[in-house]
């Protein structure tokens, strides 16, 4: 697959229309990890599939303006450090102690009555933060893997 390969017009227009929606849906899945099935890993994978779709439809030109490879690599490290820092916040009591849960002063600190309910977003202490950290990490990680393999493949053409 040489790099300036482009799919047909139909695919390109549909991709142009839908890739924004996929990204928004991905962030929805990340954000509601503690309420609905989903979470950091699944949401991050959905968003990186949007970037992969761009790559397939437009070839490497698809990601030219939108994604900066080195920025994504650094963002992945930032996401990883943020996740580890969340684990270390509760070091006073124990590593990975969820100190934000069930204390109303903190964002995401509300407690939840037992039994089925309609689910309030601002609950579950460190969970939403962790979901965001892992979501950012998966999103940037998977995309930089896809880009690295594309570039790896293209370099193979030149030799």
């Amino acid at each position, binding site marked *: 697959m040489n790099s300036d390969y482009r799919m047909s017009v139909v695919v390109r227009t549909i991709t142009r229309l839908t890739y924004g929606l996929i990204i928004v849906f991905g962030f929805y899945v990340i954000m509601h990890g503690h*309420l*609905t*099935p989903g*979470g950091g*890993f699944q949401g991050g994978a959905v968003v990186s599939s949007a970037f992969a779709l761009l790559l397939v439809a437009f070839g490497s030109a698809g990601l030219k303006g939108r994604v900066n490879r080195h920025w994504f690599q650094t963002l992945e490290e930032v996401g990883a450090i943020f996740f580890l820092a969340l684990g270390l916040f509760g070091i006073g009591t124990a590593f990975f102690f969820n100190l934000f849960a069930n204390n109303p002063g903190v964002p995401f600190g509300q407690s*939840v009555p037992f*039994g*089925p*309910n*309609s*689910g309030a977003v601002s609950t579950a202490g460190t969970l939403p933060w962790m979901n965001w950290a892992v979501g950012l990490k998966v999103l940037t990680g998977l995309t930089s*893997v896809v880009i*690295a*393999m594309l570039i*790896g*493949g293209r370099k*193979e053409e030149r*030799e």
Partner: protein
Amino acid sequence: MSLGNLPFIASAMLVILGIYTLLFKRNLVKLVVGGSLIETGVNLFLVTFGYRTAGVAPIYTYAPAAKRMVLPTPQALTLTSIVIGMATTALLLSFAIHVYRHHGTLDARKVKELKG
């Protein structure tokens, strides 16, 4: 209507198929496909351990009342196992690209540069 252990045997067959491709196939990319086949089989194996008959997903948002909930731990383990499967496949494929670039072939027999 107890299925007995049929779902376990089905996922065990998936793992056995994967092991078969890994042991007997020669093309490097086919080995990677075999590897991910095993990963899927094992994930299915893990998830089916946690099922309760007529069970509902263990999520309380709009959960139907008075329904038994399926075991949540295998699903957490499977999440980890899926990401591990992705990671190993990504690494295997990137080294397969390198081997193809050096040796010009993906057939494991011809690539046998390393003895023993």
